[in-house]
Structure formats: C-alpha cells, structure tokens
C-alpha cells in the first residue's frame, strides 16, 4: 500500500506541487502560498482552494489570487503565487447607524421617550456588522453581552467596525474551517491534543504585568454656580490696547461711583473713555475668583484660585432637559439680583439665591436673565447686549421712595468647567485602577477613554451656605470596569505551545488557538497549531495586523474627512459631540 499523497488544487493551476496556508484571527485574509509546475498561462482568479490528505479534505472557498505575489522562473514561467482566503471580500461594503446613544445624563436612549430606540447589545451590533458583510450562519454567542458600547457608523467598513467592537470587548473574529464566522473571547478555547503529535513545544511566557491597569476618563466636568463680578474695559496706556478690570478700578470711574450713570450713554464720562464705558460698564461680568468647585478635590480642596485652572468654561450645564425627544445638557444660565426695568423699581429678587433646576420649584425663576447675552468662554466673561445692573435704592426691597440707584448686579453663571491642577495645569480626570495579582513593580498601565467623563452637579442651599454634590461615578466606574476586564485578559498567565501533527488535522481557531498552518506537498502533509502564540516567522501577529488595519481605516477616514467634507458632516451629524462608550 502506497503512503497517502498530499493533494492540493486551485482553479487554473495545472499542476500544484505544494501548498501552505496559515490561518489566523481577525478580518484580514490568511494567505496560502502555492508552488506550481512552471506554467505559461494562468487565467484563474477566484475559486476554492482544496487541500487533501488521506481521508481529510479542507476547502477554502472564494479564495482569490494575490497577483502581486507571482514568482517566475528564468524562462518566465509562473512557478509560485499566493492566494488569499475569502476575507478579501471584507474590504468592501458599508454599515451606517448610531447605536447606544448615551444622553448627557448618562442614561441610554432606548426608546423610552420620543427619540429612536438606539439600544443594541454587543451581540446585536456584531450581528449587524456580519450581516452587512453578507455573512450567514455566524456565531456571536461568545461575546460578552452586558455592556452597551456606543457606536456611530457612517458608511463605515463593516469588517473594521466589527473588529473594533471585538477589540473593545476582548474578542477576536475567527473564520472557522466550516466557512462560518465566529466571535471568540481572547485566550478562551480548546486545548491542543498532543496525542500522536510529531512535535510538541511549550514554553513559559509569563505576561509582563504592570502593577496595575487603570482607565483614565476624559476631563471631569463640574457644574458650578460661578459668582460674577462687574468689570469694564479700560485702556492699557503703555500698550495702546484694552484690558478688563473691576468696575470701580476703571481709570475713568466717576468719583461718585456709578450710581447715577446716565445709562446707556455714559455722557458723564470723559469723551475718550465714553466708548469703553458704553461697551462694557454693566455689560461685562467676569467669573469671580477664587471659586469653589463642588466635587473637585485639589491641593486646596474644592477651591480654585486662578482662572487659568478653569478656563475655558463650557456654555452648558451638566443638568439636562428633554426636547424633541433628545435629552441634552441645558445651556448655561445667568441669574441673580438685577433690575428688570419693567413696571416698578424692584429687582428680579431681593437676595441672591440659586435658581431652581429645571422641573423643580413652583414656577420658572424670576431671577433668570433671559435677555440677549453672549459668553466669552475663554475669558470667563458674560457679555450682555444691554446694561444689567441692580437697583440699590431701598425702594427696591419695599423701602420708602420710588427710584432707581444703579449698582452692579449680583449675578451667577451656572455653567460647566474642567479643572486644571494649579501647578502642573494637568486636567483633573477620573481614574479607575485595578491592581493586578502577581504584578511587578512596573508602573501602572493607563488606558485612555476620553468618552468616559465624570460629571458633578451641585445642589446649593438657598443661601449658598452649603452644597450637596451628585456625580455619575457609579456609571463611569461600570464603564471603566468593562474596559479593565478586557485589558486584564492580556495579563493572564499563558503557556504558549505549538504542536505539529502529521497529516491534515481539522482544528478550528478559537480564542486560544491563534494560528493553524496546513502544508501539503510531495513530502506529505502536516499541520501546525499554535495556542496562545502566533509564530512571527509564519505570520504577522494579530496585534500588529490590527494596527495595520486601523491605519488603513484611518487613511480611509482621513481621505473622507477633508475640510469640506468635515464642514458638510458637521451640518448633518445627529451626534454633535462625543458620546460615551460603554
């Protein structure tokens, strides 16, 4: 009886002498290297690569010739070429959709209001991708399904979207021998059977663990009731420019003060300063320093003393409201004690008190200023289009008389800021740290996730004497933990092993078995399977491959995001800002 012969075939190849295919994780096609008898004409393009030995036949349908791989002999005849498995088709297609939209209050937009139901589990998202890749019979059941990762696909490549999703969840895309796609968890899978193996090699490769891993969120957001001080523009004599100084320190401030200013003209002011006064007096209000930032814990506790630590501020609050089915941050608000200039001589309120948050209180706060104004976020300024002041006469609060005596309004800007360290100017961010068992003394590895943002929302007492702070730390930590879980898998102790079998052993890739190579040739056939290991001499490791894939995707995105396209996109994007990912 003759020993069994290795057989290989591919459409258009007249005499295939030997074939080797190395299968790996991911969305990039695996490559088969074919050695053929010199052949002049070759018209094959796509087809099924078959490898057979004894009773075993492995089929790889829809393989495609990699024309860049042709090698010719000295006669010019074709003698070697490569074909790629059917994953070459995954370079095409598109997927669009926005799922798991996290509102500004960190609740999920899941159809509980007028908005669209955006909630999708990871397995549902993976299914969407795979369907967009024209895959059938796939298996996504291994995917962790608890988190709700936020995605915004806009004519994105479905395979890349799937790979990114898998990266975030500690999973791998696997093309199985039955030609079906499966999503497997990293490091989890079958053991290699060493029975009858030709060779078996194992080594201990302890992971290079840092002492801890940590998720770093985006800069913390603090909602603050910023007290404002009246300021004005003044000339900088030495520079010929303008500067901002408190009202009573203005070089042109009337000796009797501003109480009888003839608003809005300021004709009492020297003509050369009149324009500055008209533009700024009782119109410019600046964040007063120092300021208490509820929830911030810096070197001086919650107190921040320099403006550069909090500027630029944001033009919205952490508080949210629902409008047109969308829950979004409220715009910044200004309120306080100011003269309303209607009906009587009273101010908007008798004393400074926090405006009630939306939905609280019996009626809309009279103290909120609804007149036209703008925010100079970079300088922490509120600039009113009309003079805003308060009546300091006793009649404003029920005293005798009936007149208006001008004074700076007592105003508060309710807005959001980020806080920088007073010495390093580093932004305060939330850190979720997990110490690794058996860790080395290597520093902590930080995983940056800008989309995870810790927010603080204070509730002040009526006289601003005390404050309670609510935060979303529980939600933020839960999201960070999902990333830490995925990252921690990388530091599990593994024993990389490689087993060489005679013949063709139909072994499926999974989360642990990362690579399988089949070789068929005149000398016979053998199978090499690697577990927790990807031999670099054989193939590009999965991590490196993902870098290449992401880079390719980035180049594609870059090409699509020319300034003109970006401008166009910004007009139509339903997601005007980053949303947190799970």
């Amino acid at each position: 009886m003759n020993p069994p012969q290795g057989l290989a075939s591919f459409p258009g190849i007249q005499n295939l002498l030997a074939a080797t295919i190395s299968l790996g994780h991911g969305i990039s096609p695996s490559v088969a290297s074919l050695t053929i008898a010199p052949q002049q004409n070759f018209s094959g393009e796509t087809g099924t690569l078959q490898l057979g030995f004894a009773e075993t036949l492995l089929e790889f349908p829809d393989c495609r010739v990699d024309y860049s791989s042709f090698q010719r002999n000295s006669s010019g005849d074709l003698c070697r070429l490569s074909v790629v498995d059917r994953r070459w088709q995954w370079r095409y297609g598109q997927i669009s959709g926005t799922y798991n939209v996290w509102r500004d209050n960190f609740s999920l937009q899941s159809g509980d209001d007028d908005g669209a139901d955006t909630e999708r589990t990871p397995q549902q998202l993976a299914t969407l991708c795979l369907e967009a890749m024209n895959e059938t019979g796939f298996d996504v059941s291994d995917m962790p399904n608890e988190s709700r990762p936020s995605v915004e696909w806009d004519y994105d490549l479905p395979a890349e979207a799937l790979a990114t999703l898998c990266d975030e969840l500690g999973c791998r895309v696997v093309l199985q021998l039955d030609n079906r796609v499966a999503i497997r968890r990293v490091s989890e899978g079958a053991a290699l059977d060493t029975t009858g193996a030709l060779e078996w090699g194992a080594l201990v490769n302890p992971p290079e663990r840092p002492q801890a891993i940590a998720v770093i969120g985006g800069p913390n957001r603090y909602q603050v009731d910023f007290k404002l001080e009246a300021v004005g523009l003044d000339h900088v004599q030495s520079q010929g420019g303008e500067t901002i100084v408190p009202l009573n320190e203005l070089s042109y401030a009337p000796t009797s003060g501003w109480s009888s200013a003839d608003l809005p003209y300021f004709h009492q002011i020297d003509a050369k300063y009149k324009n500055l006064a008209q533009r700024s007096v009782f119109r410019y209000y600046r964040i007063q320093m120092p300021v208490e930032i509820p929830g911030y814990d810096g070197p001086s506790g919650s107190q921040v003393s320099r403006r550069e630590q909090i500027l630029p501020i944001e033009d919205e609050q952490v508080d949210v409201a629902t409008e047109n089915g969308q829950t979004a941050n409220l715009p910044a608000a200004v309120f306080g004690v100011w003269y309303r200039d209607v009906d009587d001589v009273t101010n908007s309120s008798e004393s400074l008190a926090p405006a009630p948050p939306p939905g609280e209180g019996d009626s809309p706060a009279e103290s909120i200023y609804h007149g036209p104004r703008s925010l100079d976020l970079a300088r922490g300024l509120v600039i009113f289009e009309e003079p805003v002041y308060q009546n300091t006469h006793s009649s404003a609060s029920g005293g005798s008389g009936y007149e208006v005596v001008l004074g700076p309004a007592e105003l508060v800007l309710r807005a959001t800021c980020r806080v920088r360290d007073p010495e390093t100017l580093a932004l305060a961010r939330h850190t979720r740290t997990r110490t690794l068992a058996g860790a080395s003394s290597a520093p902590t590895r930080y995983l940056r996730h800008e989309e995870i943002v810790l927010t603080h929302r204070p509730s002040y007492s009526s006289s601003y004497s005390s404050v309670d702070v609510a935060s979303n730390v529980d939600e933020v930590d839960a999201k960070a933990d999902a990333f830490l879980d995925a990252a921690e898998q990388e530091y599990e102790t593994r024993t990389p092993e490689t087993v060489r079998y005679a013949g063709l052993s139909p072994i499926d890739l999974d989360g642990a078995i990362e690579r399988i190579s089949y070789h068929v040739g005149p000398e016979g056939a053998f199978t090499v399977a690697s577990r927790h290991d990807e031999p670099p001499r054989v193939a590009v490791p999965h991590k490196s491959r993902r870098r290449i894939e992401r880079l390719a995707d980035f180049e594609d995105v870059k090409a699509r995001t020319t300034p003109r396209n970006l401008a166009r996109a910004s007009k139509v994007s339903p997601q005007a800002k980053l949303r947190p990912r799970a």
Partner: protein
Amino acid sequence: MSTPSTPIQALAKIPFKNFHTQSVPPFGVIELVGSEVEDGVTFLKGTRPSTTLRTEYAINGPSRVAAGDKGVCYRQGDLAAAYDTSSPAVGQGWGPRGDQWTLSKGYPAIVTVHGLRNAANKILHGALAPLSRVMGLAASETAPLSSAQPGTQTFALRVWNGTDFIAATPTTTFTGYNVSTEAIAANTLTSFVNVNGLWVAVVSGQSIHELVKTTTTHGAGGIATTNIWTGAPGSEAVTSPLKTLNATNRTSVAIPSGKFCLATKIHGNWYIEPWQC
C-alpha cells in the same frame, strides 16, 4: 385698578441735562427749554415746569438726576410718571404744573392715565404724548388776523377741575395767536392748538348776534362799548367774566344808557339797534 405691564426699557431714552437748581426726581416731568451740544452730543435742556407754558415736556427716567447732571428722559410712549395729589383715573389727562416736578390733574394733558403704578409713592402709569391743545382766557380782546399777521394776546392757562375750566395755580401764561377774521372777545374761554410751536386759537361757531346792554348813551352814528349779556330768556345776566364789544349806532336816534340792544356783526363790524327806545 390693575398695574399694567410695560417694557420701559423699550422706550427711546433721550439724553438731557438738568438746568434746574434742584435734582429731577425719578419719573418727574421736565420742561424742555432748548438744547446744547457737548462733546458732539446734543442734550436737551431740561428744567422744572415754570409758569410760562411751553410746548415740549418730557418724563425723567427712574433715576434721580442732580442739578447740572446728565440723565435720560422719555418723550413718548407708555411709562411711569410721578403725580402730585388726588387719584388718577383711567382716561384722565394729567399735565405739567408750574413750579413742580409732578403731573397734576386737569393740567395741559401730556399723559393719559392708564392706571396706578404705585399709589404710596404717587406714581401713575400712562401714555405720554406731545402737548397739542390747551385752554386759555385773556383779560383783553385779541385782535383778528390783519392781512397775514395774527392778533396776539397773553392768555392765562385754564385747567379742568372736573366741572369747569378754571385758572391754573400758580398762574401760568402763554401767548395766544388769533388767525381768524374775528377778534376774540376779552375773557372768552378759548381753545388753542400747537402750530409750529405757537398756540393758535381755535375760533369757530362765533355768533353774529349778541344781546348787549348799553352802559352809556350811544349817540346816533357813534361807536361805544357795550356789555354782552347771556343766559336763559327772562333771566339773562351780564357775562361773567365780563365780555364786551364795540358797536356802531347807525340809527338816527341816540340810545340811552341801560338799554338792551341787538348787536349784529356785518362785514366784521358790530352794529346795534335799540329794543327799548
């Protein structure tokens, strides 16, 4: 009376300078006596209403404006204004009164009352409009138009007390112009309108007949002054204040003193004919 709601800040704020020795109180009425330019800015010159009636007034803003200082005032629109006494009622006309900063009831109406804003501090709410019409009375006859020149006379301002047009206190005067072809008899209550800054008498429906009584013998062909009588038939009385006219006796008889006569105006001249001779 409800307090109306009006956006005061929507009104045009006119810069003015206080030329009076006192400060202008909040929402006080200001008499405008001209303007001056300072640093390229034109300021209205404002002072306390005087005893000489003018044609332009304004209301101060909510802040007190010291003597010689600059402020803003309103010339037109719905606003708050200070008043003196009594209780403003909707629809009443209130206006400037000599020697005070507050509006007074029945005085030349520049504000039509909409309601009370603050009774304790005597602040009303009303519509400010330019002064366009006043009532006056002259102690002497005002000559008719002569060629194109109107007759003029000093009139004493009359104000409405709810029943009668009475003399303003303090006495306030203005120059009235008569552009009719008829003279305005002395002590005739006359309406005036503001034309080109002049108070022009509105003379209409003048009678061409008057009941008069001679006070002296009126010789045939002579001219004499007679007293005009008025009142219900049978209880006529001499006009009060007294109104007179100069009439010609074109008859051939002398009319004794104390006789009732019919005075008739013909071609602008009064002629009398005796009833009792």
